[in-house]
């Protein structure tokens, strides 16, 4: 299997995630796009691990999964707080810090 297949697949997922972060209005959908990006990095790490026959890539993929779980926990807590304060999760309306 060509190494590039995996790398380009993960680049595609990462760029799709960037499109989602930039173009989505709903905060939960933005968090899902961030998950896409983190998952793309995971594929990259495991592909390099198989290419170099080294275990380090897989260990860091496990760390990354842990950090993604922490990120989703905090992110959804913040989204819930926004919803409780302004009764919407529309990110275009969350502009209280705008000068």
């Amino acid at each position, binding site marked *: 299997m060509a190494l590039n297949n*995996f790398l380009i697949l993960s680049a595609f997922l990462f760029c799709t995630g960037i499109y989602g972060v930039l173009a989505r209005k709903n905060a939960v959908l933005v968090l899902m796009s961030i998950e896409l990006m983190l*998952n793309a990095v*995971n594929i990259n790490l495991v592909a390099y691990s198989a290419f170099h026959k080294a275990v380090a890539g897989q*260990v860091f993929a496990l760390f990354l999964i*842990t950090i993604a779980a922490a990120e989703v926990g905090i992110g959804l*807590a913040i989204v819930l707080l926004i919803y409780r304060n302004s009764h919407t999760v529309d990110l*275009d309306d969350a502009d209280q810090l705008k000068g």
Partner: protein
Amino acid sequence: MVAQNVAFWILAIAMAGAAIGVVRSQNVVHAALYLVVVLAGAAAQFILLAAEFVAWVQVLIYIGAIVILFLFGIMLTRAPMRPEGSMDNSQRLAAAVVSLFLFGVITALFVDAYGGKEIKLSDDLVLIGRSSNIASSIFRDYLVPFEVVSMLLLAALVGAVVIARRD
């Protein structure tokens, strides 16, 4: 080798279509279900790369825990099931240009750097991905990062409880 390539392309096409579904779907629950397809496809790719332990952790944590968290988030924020307004903002065109440009740049870099390089599947690759090997690597070589990550997870969960609590 041919079977692995065929499996890769079937999974890759399914993952790419589902990823576009995540960022294009106007229904929030459908987007979460498309995300499940992407994550399961990634787990299958890990199995193709002989990383079985990472693949099952991916299934347990991503599909089992994170997607459920997303569904709770959708439920608690009363996201509209059927679209009344668009889920996208006005920057769609600019976002598409940015992501396509970035995809082009990254792809050109990868083709330049790794063109023609092959992943050779062999028995020692399976031995590397075994859970006993990964466990001894984590607890021997990466013990300090492991402890740091566990403290990070603890702090994040306590922080999430503090943020989301009603006073």
